[in-house]
């Protein structure tokens, strides 16, 4: 039987953990997705789900991925890059990715796309053309590293002969990949980047502009996918009552809880759709 349910998890840093809540809610109802698509932060969770990890296990493993030591060196690197002391080219970054890479490796080891329980696709952006790049084979770790290469913060990542950056630059919530794969019912977990109001430095300004653009690309692509999909897209939009930063790892349990709550609202409708023969 064709599996008609897909999960798409968009960019949003640790907020993407909300997708584990969706996964929990589906699991309880005996609903299994047949496809997972992830972008940027969402690629980490799409991978754990597609690898068949238990949601609690996935929570435990991802809880400490982005602690503050991952971002060490940022301020001093920025200073020397801005003053021209160090050159800044397309392969440069403000943060050395060693710690982050090792953390990701401890979760995903040398696992490949071929080892997943159901198909997994991870979206990144071609650094030179800005076009979407869908990664569906090879080492999952490489695909995630490419997909989360936040511009300027982490360096782009080479896969084959393609230099790749953050998937959010082209397709923050890649529903189109699920549409292309022929999914009917698409549960989409997406987030707008939080907008910071106090812009007291050049980098705050670049972050601000990037966030504005990514949010507008998110809205435009979502509008288009909605207008052209033949079946149903169900946005799962968790409601956070307290402000949650994109790297606020301590909030992960709360984020998952809110994701589960948002998903539960849609479960009866998802079940009805999957039972409907059309």
């Amino acid at each position: 039987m064709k599996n008609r349910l897909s999960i798409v998890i968009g960019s949003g840093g640790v907020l993407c953990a909300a997708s584990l809540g969706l996964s929990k809610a589906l699991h309880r109802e005996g609903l299994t997705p047949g496809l997972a698509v992830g972008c940027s932060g969402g690629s980490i969770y799409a991978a754990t789900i597609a690898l068949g990890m238990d949601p609690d296990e996935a929570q435990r493993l991802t809880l400490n991925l982005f602690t503050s030591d991952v971002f060490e060196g940022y301020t001093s690197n920025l200073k020397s890059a801005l003053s021209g002391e160090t050159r800044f080219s397309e392969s440069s970054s403000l943060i050395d990715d060693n710690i982050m890479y090792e953390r990701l490796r401890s979760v995903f080891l040398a696992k490949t796309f071929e080892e997943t329980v159901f198909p997994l696709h991870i979206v990144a952006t071609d650094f030179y053309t800005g076009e979407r790049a869908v990664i569906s084979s090879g080492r999952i770790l490489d695909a995630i590293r490419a997909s989360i290469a936040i511009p300027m913060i982490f360096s782009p990542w080479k896969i084959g002969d393609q230099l790749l950056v953050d998937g959010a630059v082209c397709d923050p919530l890649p529903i189109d990949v699920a549409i292309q794969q022929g999914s009917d019912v698409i549960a989409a977990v997406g987030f707008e980047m939080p907008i910071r109001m106090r812009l007291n430095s050049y980098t705050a300004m670049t972050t601000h502009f990037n966030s504005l653009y990514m949010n507008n690309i998110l809205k435009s692509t979502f509008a288009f996918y909605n207008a052209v999909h033949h079946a149903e897209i169900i946005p799962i939009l968790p409601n956070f009552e307290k402000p949650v930063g994109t790297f606020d790892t301590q909030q992960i349990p709360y984020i998952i809880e809110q994701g589960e709550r948002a998903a539960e609202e849609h479960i009866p409708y998802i079940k009805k759709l999957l039972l409907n023969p059309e």
Partner: protein
Amino acid sequence: MKTEVKHVDNYAVVVVSESVDALTAPDLAKAITEQITRGHINLVVDLAGVDFMSSAGLRTLLGAVKESRSNGGDLRITSSNPGVDKVLKMSGFNNIAKVFPSQAEAIASFGSSFMSDTKKKIALVIGAGSVKCAAALGLWKALEREDIHFDMIVGCSGGSLYAAAMAMGFSLQECIDNTKKLWNRSITQKRNWRALASILLPGVVKFNNQFSMISDGPMLKSFTSVFGEKTFADTKTPLYVMATDFETGESILQHEGRLVDALRASVAIPYIWSAWQHNGRLLIDGAASNPLPVDVPIREGVDIILAMGFQSPLPSRIKSVSRYAFYINSLMTNNLLNANFAFHNAVHHAEIISIFPEFERSIRLFDTDQIPYVIEQGEKAMQEQLPYLKRLLES
């Protein structure tokens, strides 16, 4: 889902309640088509009683808007449920259809539309593209020979300068002359040293959200030398100028007030020029939200839309952090352009003719000496589409 239809004058009011989803939307489509077939081409759909609207429901509504417009009418929405409003906004619906707070206001809006006569309407949209936007003058040259005129002109960023000059009714030659005044090297020559210091010495010179690499004095002076104190009310053709809210990223359409204010806001390219304070908002480059604002004429029910758009040039070498930031911005502007254009093409009821001139030479942000060549390429691109445009106008 329940639907109830009543008629006010010749307008059909379709009151919808409960859940509009994949299982119920076909019934809504049927109810609306029935009204249109009976000649009620102007409809108001009241969503106040809807508690859930799914993507299939939205698609049905988008289809119904198209259907009514293809028949010479329009479908307008009233909605007061915040949950449904959120879905409408998220899916771009509010940009392409008209949404009103009440049935009465929606019905009243039909009377005041400039679309009320049946002649085919043409709009020109000139997208962001700095110097390349001069290609719009070439397009105009080709159309003027054929005596084809616009019912509406929309501009974004660099495109807004040409949109404004054309809407003011300047002659082609005046526009070409003005171009040299509006966009030339002098407007980029005054470096903003204070801003540069604020990057390098943030402790000494305070960084603020008015940051810009270039001081806007010469640019304001050149804009004023062409448009003076003229307002949108002075234009001969209705003019719309796109900008972006600096704080929220929303697209802000400008249709009132001084032209110079609207243009200054619309060209405020991130990092290069500072945001422009206007009507209580801080505004930047329209390209940050809507680089080729085709949705404006779609919402107004225009049939034929000439969309002149440009890809942002990518700096060939990245040598510094600021170049890197600008490079990523250009990538994202292009992706935003593509995503919006795909959506607009999917939802428009009639025809969008895209005119994307080809440039064999690389044309950078301020290569103003290339303007004659740019105009030529614009004319060539329009010339290619002209037979089709004429066929559309005659049909």
